[in-house]
Structures are given as C-alpha cells and as structure tokens.
C-alpha cells in the first residue's frame, strides 16, 4: 500500500490489475501490523469495508463503475458522521456526535466509489495541534518514534503516511488539516471557506471550520476535492460557485506564476532547518519559471488573535453540555480552552467577527494585487516529541499549542485556500513543510503550484520506515 497513490490505485482497479478487495485487504493488513503502535484509528470497520469492496468488485465485473474512486480505501476523521459507526470526536464518549444524515463529504466520496475503512483518531474535540489524545492513545509520527503526528486531524495524517488508507478527510479550524500533513509529510488542503460542505461534521467553530482532503500526493488531493467540492443544500454556508477542474489544470506548469513570499511574521523565529527547507522550496518554484517577489502580509498576528477569540467562544458554545455536565471526562488542557471561551465577552466576540471581515478584504486586496499565490512555512519547527509537547501546566501547553499553529491559523481567518506539502527532511529524519496559499476559490492554482513543486522535488517517493 505504501507505493500506491489514489490515482494509480484507481487506475489499476479500473484496468483489472487489482481488485477492490485486494486493495482493502492490503490496507487492513497494514492497520493490523502498525496501528497498535501508531494509533491512527479509533474505529476500524473491517467487515463493512470488505463487504463494500466485494460489492464494488461485482459491479466492476458487470461493467458498472461507481465513479473515479471505485474501490479506493479511505478513512475519515472521527468527527464525520457516518450512519452505523460511532462518532466520538476524540472524546471518551463513543457516540458524542450524531447527525440526521451522513456527512455530505463522506457521502459524496462513497458515491464516487470509495470504500470506508473506519474512523480516525484526532485530538479531543479537535482542540490541539499535536495529535495527543489521552482517551484513544496519542497518534504517533510514522517518520520518527516518539514525535507528534500533528493535530487535530492526527489519525488522518498518520493513516495516509503509513499506507493504512489511500486518503482521508480532515477538518481545519486553526491548522488541523495542514499541521498533521506537515508533520507526516503528506499533502493536505484547507479549501476556501464555503468550498466544501460541513454538513454532518461536528462543528468546533462554525466561522472557522473547514473540511478538506489529505492524501500522499497533490494529484490525489485534487481528485478528492473534485468529488467533495460544491454547493450542499444541507450547509447554508456552502458556496454556489461551481467547482473548477482541479485535476485537469495540474499539468500546465507554473511558468509566469507570481509567487509572493512574506517579509513579515511567517519566517520570524523559524527553526533553521525549517527555514532553509522552505527557502529551497521557493527556489524550486523559481526554477520552474515562477516569478518570486516579497510582500508584507497585513496583520497576520491580529487575524490570529481574532481567530482565537472566535474559535474559543464558538467552541465553548458547542461543547457547553459536555464541559458543564461531565467536566472530569475532558482533558485539562481542552477544558481550559473551553473555559476561556465562556469568559470572553460578547463585545469582544462580535468585534472579532467584524474585524475579520475587514482584515480578510485587506489581505486579499494587498497580497493578491501582484501575486497569484503566497508561499509560507507550515510549521515553525519539525514535529516535537509528544512528551515535550504536552508536558507542564495547561497554560504552558496552551502557549506551545498557539506557537505551533501560528503559521496556519491566520488563513482560517482569511478564509482562503491553503495547501500544506512536504519540502524535505531534517537531518534527524523529520518532515519539513510549507504552505501554498491562494486567492478565494482558486484552489486550482494552489494545487497546480503544489503539483509542479512535488514533481520537481521528488519527496513523494520517500517512505517512512515503519519496522
């Protein structure tokens, strides 16, 4: 499974070189071998996945193809509602979240032929960037033992990087798709706010939540986005704007593409190896014909504070009952984050929402006046040791969490698409990563730039040594 991508596996199944049952069986074997250690899954639905694969193979034999993902095994962050499977949202409670329908994004992937392997580990209530979870076990970084997987979509990052699933869904409120993608050396996209329906997905902060794809290659991410993007009557915030041909645009190169690099905030205080890796990646883009220029990003630190205020308040509102009725079930750091939300004034919350609108307009106007995409680091340093990340009093951990997500969080506020992808490894073997950020609803250009880089850089060929 480590050598397949969604694109190559789907093609192999279509050509009769491999069956859906063989693909699912290989993933289940990989889960059996490694998930005891890596803790990517909360629920594995082996029987359901095999039954579905057998049905898809029968369909294929009869010439009925469900869609571009026919037989491709995927898995979903355990806050996506799927009828018949528990949805814990990383809490101690197996059925913490229920919805009236299957999550729209999951439903669309299944309708395109995907097989559901199960539900993936995550930070409790999607609060926290390291992937630790006291209830279900810490999701472990497949590249280096003892290191964080990134969060909150931790299991999504680990399962894809370790070949347990070909792709996954994550959610991103302050970086929760991009941080595990960066820590696990896979590609992960936070789409534009409104591009992908959030119906059937547990909300954390409805103003900042995004659902998006995570996979080994940018091409795979484009394929998954193609399936899940678009208006959904079950989500009033989903945009009616038609989806682009994301995969079709990938091979057109980036000659002449204008890439802005921020002069402020994003490179300050960066780990030396991370900074050098991201600069090299920008050099690769330039070598492919992109025009590089410097830009000052307006007030990313203010947007980060704005996002924090909004997310804390909305998160507290969402999870009031759990924290008030069963506080002992919630990890202290998570409880502290929710408690803070109870105490922020309505005035500050509303001012933050008003500020966000102004800051977003200014960001789009100033950054994209002379650029097509923005290239920035994704994480300030390589994935830390889990033990170090979660040590100390809740306020210390919270400070560490805020620092680790400082490069991703502003783009949740700005609402623009941001792709995280690997750009090398440290001497110790930990992934380096950067983000390509685009203008609203221009995921096609973001993915095209990411694909061009990925093809030129060659990191896609590297695999973690799981044994």
């Amino acid at each position: 499974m480590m050598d397949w991508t969604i694109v190559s596996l789907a093609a192999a199944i279509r050509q009769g070189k491999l069956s859906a049952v063989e693909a699912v069986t290989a993933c289940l074997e990989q889960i059996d071998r490694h998930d005891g250690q890596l803790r990517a899954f909360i629920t594995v639905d082996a029987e359901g996945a095999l039954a579905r694969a057998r049905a898809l193979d029968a369909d294929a034999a009869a010439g009925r193809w469900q869609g571009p993902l026919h037989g491709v095994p995927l898995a979903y962050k355990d806050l996506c509602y799927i009828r018949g499977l528990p949805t814990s949202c990383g809490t101690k409670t197996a059925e913490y979240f229920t919805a009236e329908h299957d999550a729209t994004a999951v439903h669309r992937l299944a309708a395109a032929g995907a097989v559901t392997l199960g539900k993936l580990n995550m930070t409790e209530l999607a609060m926290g960037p390291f992937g630790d979870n006291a209830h279900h076990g810490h999701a472990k970084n497949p590249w280096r033992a003892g290191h964080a997987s990134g969060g909150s979509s931790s299991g999504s990052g680990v399962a894809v990087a370790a070949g347990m699933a070909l792709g996954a869904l994550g959610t991103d409120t302050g970086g929760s798709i991009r941080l595990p993608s960066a820590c696990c050396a896979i590609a992960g996209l936070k789409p534009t706010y409104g591009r992908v329906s959030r119906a059937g997905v547990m909300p954390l902060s409805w103003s900042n939540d995004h659902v998006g794809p995570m996979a080994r290659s940018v091409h795979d991410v484009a394929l998954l986005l193609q399936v899940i993007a678009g208006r959904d009557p079950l989500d009033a915030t989903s945009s009616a704007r038609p989806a682009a041909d994301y995969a079709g645009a990938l091979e057109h190169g980036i000659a002449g593409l204008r890439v802005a690099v921020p002069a402020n905030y994003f490179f300050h205080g960066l780990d030396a190896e991370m900074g050098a890796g991201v600069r090299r990646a920008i050099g690769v883009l330039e070598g492919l014909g992109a025009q590089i220029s410097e830009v000052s990003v307006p007030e990313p630190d203010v947007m980060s504070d704005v996002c924090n205020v909004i997310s804390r308040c909305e998160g507290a509102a969402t999870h009031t009952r759990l924290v008030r009725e069963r506080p002992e079930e919630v990890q202290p750091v998570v409880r502290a984050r929710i408690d803070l939300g109870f105490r922020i004034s309505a005035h500050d919350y509303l001012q933050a929402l008003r500020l966000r609108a102004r800051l977003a307009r200014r960001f789009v106007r100033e950054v994209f006046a002379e650029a097509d995409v923005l290239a920035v680091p994704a994480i300030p340093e390589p994935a830390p040791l889990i033990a170090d990340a979660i040590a100390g009093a809740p306020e210390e951990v919270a400070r560490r969490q805020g620092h680790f997500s400082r490069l991703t969080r502003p783009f949740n506020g700005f609402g623009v698409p941001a792709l995280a992808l690997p750009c090398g490894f440290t001497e110790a073997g930990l992934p380096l990563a950067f983000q390509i950020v685009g203008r609203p609803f221009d995921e096609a250009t973001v993915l095209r730039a990411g694909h061009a880089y990925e093809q030129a850089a060659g990191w896609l060929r590297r695999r973690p040594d799981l044994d």
Partner: protein
Amino acid sequence: MSDAKAQQVALAQLSAAIERAAVDLGLGEEPARFIQALEEGADVVEPQASAELAPGSRTLGKDADRPRARRERR
C-alpha cells in the same frame, strides 16, 4: 501561576488585542462582509482559464489584463 490567574492573563491579552485592532472599525463593518470579501476576491481566474494555461503562458503574469479585487470602500 495558578490556572485561574493564567486564564485571566490570557483573557486580558486577547481582549486588549481586539480592543486595539477595533479602534477604527467603521460603522458599516459587519461579519457578513467576510463572505462578500471571499466572493469579490475570487473574481479573476475562471476554472477553464486556469485549465487552459500553457507552459510559459503569461496569463497569470504581472501584465495580464484581468480584473483586480475591488477597492475597499470606507
């Protein structure tokens, strides 16, 4: 520092940051303008235009004849 004290400090810092940034917010500024910003900011690259880009194309270049994001009205 106790948990309660740490929370007070965090709260005060966030509140001060919002207060500073919001000092000159216009009367007409409301949250829904965020969605408007995304829709207006998306005005340039049509899906088919993106897909038709040829290697070496300057369609997305500095001199491209394309609409810019609208200027903000205060």
